[in-house]
């Protein structure tokens, strides 16, 4: 979708989404509902803020000794019978997975949700090599059947309406035409995917946390698909981004208390599975992936983005994400955290994402590991400008603003002119292609006098 795009044009991509007003509104409300559930959970724990602070400290520490912890993790995982593989980038990750599947003669894989494999475009790669991959998380499966990508990292099908799922299942599974009852549709999926679980020859999962001290990996789901997908076949491949490391098993007490509460407003996911080594008679292969993470580690400005535990809370709360949809970001991880992780890796391609932000800082307020998201987004805008990735129009505007802001008298005169114009000029002169802000909304009514005038008046 975005592989060939040189620059991801967020405003352009959001246009279609925003065009359907009732749908955009529905999307906005659906995510706000999740945000409200998150608040309720956060408020039910008196130690919530201390938990966030602790989680942040643990992550800061882990990253400061990441190489040691990775080596320790490999040692301990190996001791318990797992095999650890190292992949520098997406291509190497995909090659390792393919080789493992081929060595085991696997033709059909049950995959559970893993944003890392999305990031690496593993599915299309395996399919090109004749391996059938079925996403078993219901949301991801719906998205896969529609030949789309997830629009949210926790709620992959949040942009899809039940009528559309009904039509899709009618066509692909033979469910009743016009059926829209989520219960009925989920039951049909259960039946179909049970066949997949029983016939798959390998299971691929992501990893939520990897414990250096014990060499264990933890996978969290509500559906139980990661467990079902790995409990039946002999081969389990777990794909692990290297920022998922934590030092001790006891640290899970902190992170599992934060993760589901922040993500969906649940006290914990239905299943939080701890894998230490393979099942008896089976094999566990863990593919550790860098893919640009170690470079972000080198940046004082963006290092903290590696704290992310992928809960999606910043998306649920973001006014821009809620009103523009995940696909408008043109990346596997959308929303505020995606607007950092993607440009931090490829500034030119994702130059527009840091501007898909009103700097309201709501993301920073809800982040369970205290990433200073809005500050990083602002810093990125500076980097985008310095690297010369701003459009000509924006560059001109920024230069003009800088010129005006340095001249108080000019600023004051222009303010007066602006207030006068908004009051007296006809609509067609104010709203036009030169005023993108006014495309779908009116400018606020101008104040009678400037702040400075008002201040002087009250002082007198």
């Amino acid at each position, binding site marked *: 979708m975005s592989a060939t795009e040189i620059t991801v044009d967020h405003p352009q991509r959001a246009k279609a989404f925003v065009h359907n007003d009732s749908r955009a509104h529905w999307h906005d409300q659906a995510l706000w509902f999740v945000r409200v559930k998150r608040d309720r959970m956060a408020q039910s724990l008196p130690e919530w803020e201390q938990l966030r602070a602790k989680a942040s400290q643990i992550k800061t520490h882990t990253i400061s000794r990441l190489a040691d912890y990775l080596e320790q993790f490999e040692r301990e995982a190996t001791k318990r019978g797992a095999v650890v593989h190292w992949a520098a980038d997406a291509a190497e990750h995909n090659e390792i997975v393919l080789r493992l599947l081929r060595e085991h003669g696997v033709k059909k894989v049950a995959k559970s949700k893993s944003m890392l494999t999305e990031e690496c475009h593993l599915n299309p790669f395996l399919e090109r090599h004749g391996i059938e991959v079925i996403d078993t998380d219901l949301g991801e499966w719906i998205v896969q059947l529609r030949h789309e990508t997830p629009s949210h990292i926790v709620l992959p099908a949040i942009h899809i309406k039940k009528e559309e799922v009904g039509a899709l299942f009618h066509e692909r599974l033979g469910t009743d035409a016009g059926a829209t009852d989520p219960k009925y549709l989920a039951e049909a999926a*259960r039946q179909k995917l049970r066949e997949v679980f029983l016939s798959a020859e390998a299971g691929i999962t992501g990893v939520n946390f990897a414990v250096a001290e014990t060499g264990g990996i933890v996978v969290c789901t*509500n559906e139980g698909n990661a467990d079902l997908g790995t*409990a039946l076949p002999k081969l389990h491949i777990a794909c692990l981004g290297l920022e998922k490391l934590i030092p*001790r098993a006891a640290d899970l007490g902190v992170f599992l208390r934060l993760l589901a509460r922040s993500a969906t407003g649940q006290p914990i996911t239905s299943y939080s599975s701890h894998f230490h*080594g393979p099942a008896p008679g089976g094999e566990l292969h863990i593919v*550790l992936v860098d893919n640009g993470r170690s470079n972000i580690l080198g940046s004082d400005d963006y290092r903290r983005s590696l704290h992310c535990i992928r809960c999606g809370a910043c998306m649920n709360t973001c006014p821009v994400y809620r009103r523009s949809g995940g696909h408008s970001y043109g990346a596997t991880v959308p929303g505020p955290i995606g607007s950092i992780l993607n440009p931090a890796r490829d500034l030119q391609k994702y130059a527009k994402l840091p501007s898909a932000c009103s700097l309201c800082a709501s993301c920073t307020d809800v982040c369970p590991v205290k990433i200073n998201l809005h500050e990083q987004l602002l810093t990125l805008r500076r980097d985008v400008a310095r690297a010369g990735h701003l459009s000509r129009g924006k560059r001109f505007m920024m230069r003009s603003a800088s010129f005006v802001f340095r001249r108080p008298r000019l600023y004051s005169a222009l303010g007066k002119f602006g207030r006068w114009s908004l009051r007296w000029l006809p609509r067609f002169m104010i709203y036009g292609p030169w005023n993108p802000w006014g495309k779908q909304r009116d400018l606020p009514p101008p104040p009678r006098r400037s702040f400075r005038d008002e201040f002087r008046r009250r002082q007198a």
Partner: protein
Amino acid sequence: MSTKQAILDRIRKHLPQATELPALDLPAITFPDPVAQFSEVLASVGGSCLSVAEDLAQAVRTLPCFASARQIVCQVEGLPLGNKNLSEIADPHDLNDVDLAIMPGDFAVAENGAVWVSDRSVRHRAIYFLAQHLVLVVARAHVIDNLHQAYARLEFAERGYGLFISGPSKTADIEQSLVIGAHGPRSLTVLVVGGL
């Protein structure tokens, strides 16, 4: 140079100032009646909790999921209610017809309605997910307050598999409507046994 070495070198080159590993000395929530709290939270995530003072077998027999079950796996010691023996089954795929699994839980966590189970003396971990309904049996004395206490009890010195189960399998992937019974058990009942 191997990929591993290249990644580690790149990380070491970029490492920031080291910080201390923080102590896990958090104050954590506790409850006057952990069983009541556990029961309430479990109900809120779609499960149900029953206190059983005396006759465990009788309590299980009165459950609706027992009445309708034909293939039953029971791994709880001293509870002869199963008709399918896990240790006699070679291939976990053969567990697909199990209607009900009755399994022991190590302990339960009041703050989030979760029960810890593992594959210790359970030959096929798939049983927790293939069964249409799941009953977990936990001793009243093993209901703890919060997750920090849980990890103080857990050790991962050897290979093995264990998990927290909080409620039945569920999904909200279609328009955020909660549907119970996604891929795994359609119901979860936790029986808390023993007196105070």
